[in-house]
């Protein structure tokens, strides 16, 4: 398994090279001069445009620019953005907040989703199953921004239970509602996936064998059934970690959370590739690592799966 993990990690290098180049290229291809829109209804002075282009190397061919980017990345120097603010310090401030929000969302999604899925799967057709099916249906049919605005308005403005927006340091308590909003859609998916897989596996041979052996119901469900039924849910949760973080743009906007979502959004609008490229590359990395983690966890959950 160790060798497998190392091989997968090595594979990250070409993938990262390719994606960062593509991202660089695409940002370069965006129509419109990034500095033309910075002076409102007035054309920017030529001297200003020249100075900015020279400073950010926009007057050089794309390959040269990409080479500079790689060199700076390897030396850990991300430079400054178009507003002359250090990119690294902006990432250092917003990245942990988004990671915190993302992990909280994953936790909420996994705990509530799996518990609800198991409960409804075990008591199929019962009252609880119906309640969960209906409530997940509601969550599935609401886009994230509707859930977000609804909860903000209800809990923040009407009932005064929470602050409508998250304050600067994004403390844990204030992130609970946004994390729930972010998790809501995936939570419903997780619950349904778990439910289906529990229902299927309950009729499988190994469960029947376990029951026939006289194992307690608790052990049958807790060890044999649950472990095998979690694989699809886990795959789903793992692959969605990356999209949770990039999908945080909407949630971060609604609750004014100072994470990478907002940073990315503004940077894309300003054509500020100095921010877009590092964030997009980081997101790619998160996706890849999350996928690797899921693959490795398969082996833990299902002993039949082995990696050499």
């Amino acid at each position, binding site marked *: 398994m160790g060798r497998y993990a190392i091989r997968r990690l090595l594979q990250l290098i070409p993938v990262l090279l390719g994606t960062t180049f593509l991202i660089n290229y695409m940002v370069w291809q965006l*129509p*419109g*001069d*990034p500095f*033309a*829109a*910075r*002076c*409102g*209804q*007035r*054309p*920017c*002075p*030529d*001297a*200003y*445009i*020249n*100075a*900015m*282009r020279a400073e950010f190397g926009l007057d050089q061919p794309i390959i040269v620019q990409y080479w500079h980017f790689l060199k700076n990345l390897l030396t850990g120097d991300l430079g400054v953005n*178009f*507003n*002359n*603010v*250090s990119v690294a*310090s*902006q990432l*250092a*401030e*917003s990245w942990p907040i988004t990671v915190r929000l993302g992990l909280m969302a994953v936790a909420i999604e996994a705990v509530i989703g799996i518990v609800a899925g198991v409960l409804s799967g075990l008591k199929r057709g019962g009252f609880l199953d119906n309640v969960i099916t209906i409530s997940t249906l509601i969550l599935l049919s609401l886009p994230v921004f509707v859930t977000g*605005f609804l909860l*903000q*308005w209800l809990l*923040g*403005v009407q009932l*005064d*239970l929470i*602050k*409508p*927006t998250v*304050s*600067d*340091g994004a*403390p844990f308590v*204030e992130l609970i509602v946004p994390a729930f909003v972010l998790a809501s859609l995936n939570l419903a998916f997780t619950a349904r996936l778990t439910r289906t897989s529990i229902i299927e596996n309950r009729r499988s041979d190994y469960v029947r064998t376990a029951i026939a052996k006289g194992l307690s119901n608790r052990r049958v469900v807790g060890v044999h059934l649950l472990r095998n039924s979690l694989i699809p849910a886990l795959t789903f949760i793992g692959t969605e970690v990356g999209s949770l973080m990039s999908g945080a743009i909407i949630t*971060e*906007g*609604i*609750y*004014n959370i*100072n994470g990478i979502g*907002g*940073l990315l*959004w*503004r940077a894309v*609008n300003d*054509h500020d590739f100095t921010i877009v490229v590092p964030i997009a590359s980081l997101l790619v990395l998160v996706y890849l690592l999350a996928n690797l983690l899921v693959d490795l966890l398969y082996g833990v959950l299902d002993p039949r799966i082995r990696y050499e």
Partner: protein
Amino acid sequence: MRVAKGAQIVAGTALLALGVAACGGGGSSTGGSGGGSNPRAADGTVFIRGCEPQTGFVPGNINEVCGGTINQFVFDQLIKYNSDTAAPELSQAESIESPDNKVWTIKLKPGLKWSDGSPVTAKNYVDAWNYTAYSPNAQNGGWWFGGVEGYSDVATEDPDGPDGPKEAPKPKSDKMSGLEVIDDLTFKVTLTAPEAVFRTKLGYTTFSALPDAFFKDPKAFVSNPVTNGAFKFVKWDHNSQIVVEANPDYVGTEKPKVKKIVYKMYKDDDAAYADLVSNNLDFTELIPPSALAGDKWKSDLGDRAIEGQQGVIQTVTFPLYDKEFGGNADFRKAVSMAIDRKTITEKIFNKGRTPLDGWISPLVDGYKTPGACGEFCAYDPAKAKEYLDKAKAAGYTPPKEYPIWYNGDSAHKEWVDATANSINQAFGPDAGVTFVGKAVPTFAEFRDIITTHKMKGLFRTGWQMDYPHIENFLNPLFKTGAGSNDGLFSDKELDAKLHEADTATDPADSIAKYQEAEAMLTKEMNAIPLWSFGLQAGTSKWVTGVKVTPFGVLDPLSIAIKEA
């Protein structure tokens, strides 16, 4: 940044504590009106909505709203515009005099200080202006000094533009010959030609002074400035907040009434609005469209809602460089008369905009009623048709589909579509031309197409005044070759009239000439005035006395904390 981190956490928790207190206060006082203590009173801090400035605290390099607003908080200018009347009043200057509007003698008030304790001197002004104008410094506001004698020696142009291979030659000098320090508090400005409006211009941020500390380390100054305004800079947490505090040395007649202002940045107007409604934010001048719809914001905010006017106008411009879409004067007049401004402002903007019948904002010096555009800006379908027929008889055949362009990344679609509909209805089905609203995805692309003169159709233009004077709505937009003359309009007579007005020595006479110049725009009708912007703002229940300037931003001296 490392130093700021600790402070940020402290501020964060303070903010949290405040928020909790605010919740408590709000909860207990839901029944009564004035009950509960005011959480702002404890430390005299108010929170207002802001956004991340593009450039830091160098007044000569700023040309966008986020940076402009905060710089108005921390730098004082020679002139300040009255928040109620927009009239220019002396601020740092004791007197600004000129016998001929060409040579200006500016005297500073004694005892003015920078936040590092050094005095504000005439040299600070001269140095700052020279720095901003010197083209290798690449300051955005450099062109503001174009009228000062010796400007051509310090600013050179790139012979083939930014895209060409050639570079701009090095300027002959880094000092404009028209600026002269007389003594510590007096300096003289010589312009190349008389300019009646020069005094009014001096309130624009670009004309601020810069302290000696700036020239020692311009890079560090950007994010940690030494200032001289009513408020002084405390700290800037990027993308999150800028904090300023009252300057105890400020000598202005009106003193700050709060101890601290936190300029809190929001990514989303709706988020700021939610905070405003629940009293976590004390002021925002951006009420989101979702709240404006059906006047919801007025019922949400009650007496905390502020309505007013601001010096911003909306126009649409014809590409006169394009034969097919430029049309002739009669066609352009026909289009203007086919737009039902009143209905659109009522239905789409809930009366948040006022129909225009001239090319200048109603707020500025030189505005008169009825406006210069007169009958050509009044909705009259019959006359519109008549002019369309005239245009066709004169040999212009409009294309079958005539687009009105806008940038799709802001809320323009609704009014552009409504305008197109209004024109189509007025012209009737057999006009042979159909107007349609068309979006360019982003503002950057939109500006790119405009500045390279490739627009095929009418396009959205607007103007936010730099200073409250009729001149600011004419010279930059309609003079031949002017910076924002996006439709490449050119009229020699108008140029001559504007020049006459520019160089007139008597201010009243000058304004009369500008008005004559404005009236001449009806001849070619190259840009169609639509409406001027109203202002919708709101405050929390914790503050009082809030005034909004004609520039549409908070007057920081007006805001005060309500006594509990």
